[in-house]
């Protein structure tokens, strides 16, 4: 039975439109990124409770304000995992705890994006557009950042797991990887369709490029772990679906000629009801998240050393528990920055404290998430500071990149 690769070879002779290299994604020569670096942005949709992820156990007001949602200190059964004297990681984030010890996990606490209406909807648009006004948003900051990095026609960035999120939408074409597609079309059928598209300047080249990308993913994902179906379970929406997506993303990013930048989503953070502490809904989400990031690191292999993964959520949650054992929309949350390229093993950013709250309910913002992103784009991807200021985050000149996030 002919494989998809055979079909491609077969098509290569007959279809003149295809002039690109054999692989579906750029090699280093196609991208203007220093060294062999990779960037993964994880969007935590729904507003992750930063005070549950990394609990300020040393803050004098923590236990009284958090009440029934307060975590137990390190050392107790199901206690939080120690980070610093004053901060500890949620026990269900255990899978990423070792990275902290290795200096590959950095926590930037009390982050926010300057948007105050507490609407998921608007705040996610802000988080992804990188703009401070909602008017006329059509593209995302990560897509705008691609423009000077992209060399040639091959696609540098990958949207993992479905429709391309706003953060990657825009003028620069990006690839997407979705595990839960249809059955692959039969080679004979694909060949016949390609012939019908031979003179179609829109559909013809798109089909060729898409088949190449699919062949690339198939090759990478099937050959790296023989006998293992990496996409098992990835079709769902729950916290368990994140890990297989991370595995696939890691392999695609690590592969020779693979994408270098990826964006992925993980939902389920909107814990208004029955949030739980060491067990419960939020704990399950943390576990899926942490095991996913660990799988991403593992599947990146050697490329992990030059990789940076950053997580961001649209806002935080109320400090106090609400009437349904959950938390409501708040202000500051936190970002995880992980990877071999990170100067980790510490907590960055000022701690605003819980003695004075935003609107008497929320953790105040100490660090603007855009400052973190600017530092990553500049330091890790080598983006020109002027372009960064003028085009990627055009209306926030007052927010400076945060120094010292990266290994020298």
């Amino acid at each position, binding site marked *: 039975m002919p494989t998809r690769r055979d079909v491609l070879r077969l098509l290569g002779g007959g279809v003149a439109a295809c002039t690109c290299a054999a692989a579906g994604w750029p090699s280093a020569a196609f991208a203007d990124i220093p060294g062999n670096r990779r960037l993964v942005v994880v969007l935590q949709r729904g507003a992750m409770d930063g005070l549950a992820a990394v609990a300020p156990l040393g803050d004098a007001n923590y236990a009284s304000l958090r009440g029934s949602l307060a975590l137990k200190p390190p050392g107790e059964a199901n206690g939080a995992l120690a980070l610093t004297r004053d901060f500890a990681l949620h026990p269900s984030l255990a899978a990423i705890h070792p990275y902290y010890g290795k200096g590959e996990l950095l926590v930037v606490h009390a982050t926010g994006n300057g948007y105050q*209406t507490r*609407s*998921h*909807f*608007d705040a996610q*648009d802000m988080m992804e557009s990188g703009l401070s006004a*909602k*008017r*006329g948003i059509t593209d995302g900051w990560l897509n705008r950042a691609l423009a000077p990095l992209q060399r040639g026609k091959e696609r540098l960035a990958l949207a993992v797991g*479905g*429709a391309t999120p*706003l953060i990657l939408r825009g003028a620069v*074409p990006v*690839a*997407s*990887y*979705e595990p*839960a*597609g*249809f*059955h*692959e*079309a*039969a080679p*004979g*059928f*694909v060949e*016949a*369709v390609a*012939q*019908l*598209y031979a003179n*179609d300047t*829109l*559909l013809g080249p*798109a*089909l*060729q*490029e*898409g*088949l*190449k*990308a*699919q062949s690339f993913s198939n090759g990478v994902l099937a050959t790296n772990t023989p006998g293992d179906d990496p996409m098992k379970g990835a079709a769902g929406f729950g916290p368990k679906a994140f890990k297989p997506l991370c595995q696939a993303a890691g392999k695609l990013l690590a592969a020779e000629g693979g994408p270098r930048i990826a964006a992925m989503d993980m939902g389920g953070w909107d814990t208004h*009801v029955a949030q739980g502490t060491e067990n419960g809904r939020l704990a399950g989400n943390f576990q899926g998240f942490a095991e996913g990031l660990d799988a991403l690191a593992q599947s990146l292999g050697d490329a992990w050393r030059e990789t940076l993964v950053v997580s961001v959520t649209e806002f935080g949650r109320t400090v106090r528990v609400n009437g*349904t054992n959950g938390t409501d929309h708040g202000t500051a949350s936190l970002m995880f920055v992980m990877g071999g390229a990170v100067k980790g093993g510490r907590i960055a950013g000022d701690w605003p404290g819980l003695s004075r709250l935003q609107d008497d309910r929320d953790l105040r913002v100490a660090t603007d998430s855009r400052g973190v992103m600017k530092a990553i784009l500049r330091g890790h991807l080598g983006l020109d500071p002027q372009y960064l200021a003028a085009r990627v985050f055009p209306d926030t000149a007052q927010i400076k990149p945060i120094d010292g996030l990266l290994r020298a």
Partner: protein
Amino acid sequence: MPASMAAVVAATRFGFAPKPGELAQIGSDPRGWVTSQLDRRPDFAPGNLPPSREIVTAMLESRRDKEERPELKERLKATYLGEIDARMRAAILGDTPVLERLTQFWGNHFTVSGMRPFVRGVTGAFEREAIRPHVTGRFIDMLTAVTSHPGMLLYLDNAQSFGPDSLVGRRQNKGINENLGRELLELHTLGVDGGYTQADVEALARILTGWTVAPLRDWHPGTFRFFPQIHEPGDKVLLGRTYRNGGIDEGEAALRDLALHPATARHIATQLARHFIADTPPADSVERIARRFRDTGGDLRQVTLAVLHEEAVWREPFAKVRTPTELVISAYRAVGAVPQPGFAFMALKKLDQPPFLAPSPAGWPDVASAWVSPESVVRRTEWCQTFAERLADVPDPVDVMANAYGEVLPEEIQSAVRRAPDKRAGLALLIASPQFQRR
């Protein structure tokens, strides 16, 4: 243009793929075929789908009583699939495809998206109640129905917008939410270049405070209600015009003025021309459609006729790439079969256009560049084969081709379909062809 090609353009541009017999029915009077449908009742059967007030009430109750949540979830899922089914059946089997296309166009113009989970259950009801009755009526009536519909008031947060100086606003320290005010100007009426300012957004948001959804303790919970006690008092200035302190009258007057504004005419005309003519429509077509809008005070039957009589509609067949929704509807309409609603949902989800789940208030994009990416073309190709493989009764693809296109397809397409190794393969090729991927 030969009569047969004009008939194909009428069917595909203003409806979907012709169902068996439709091309003959259109015959040599493509404009007459479209026009006659504008005066008909839509061939749409809502069955026992619940009205929005029932759904909203059930959701309000579930907020109060958590016990009911799993049950409500099941009910909302069944309603959602029922809405997909009713809409699909009307578009696939119905005799008024033009009204179905207009409904989907206007439903997209006034998007209420289930991406906000709280409104997921009412998206279909919104389309049935606020859009469907007005697609050949007056724009102001549709705009008013939309702006006062619980679906829209919840989707764009107006239900939780409080005049800061209103009775409740002062007592509870609550404020304005500008979402609806902004989208109403940017998306629904004037358009992003329509010449309004941030101050106008805020003024409209203040004008619309009090437009909300009746709570459970109300006589008619889950319906539109104007509450003076959350309406911002005082005069407001919108687009240079002062609206005197007048409760709900302010909003009604503002909507009337916005509906008749020349920028609105131009914005609507552009959207229609982009949908029915080309991704980048000719400026003179837009101007003529806008003029009809202005001259008739936004009579949408007249405006649709203005589009129909634009020469540019007929000049370039297959100028528009079909959206996934159009593709799926057209494929099933061409063969006369209806997919199970769950199957239709999964297909459209994988093709990145799940029903009633547009990514933002701007709705689904209406240009080819948004739908043609390398991955999406591969998935569309895969879907064509899946579609043909899953059909219970496979018609002869040569008959389907003749019913849908007469003889207008290029010879290489016709011969590829004829030469296919079996009926399913031939049908899949027809659906995948460059012409069927377009309209």
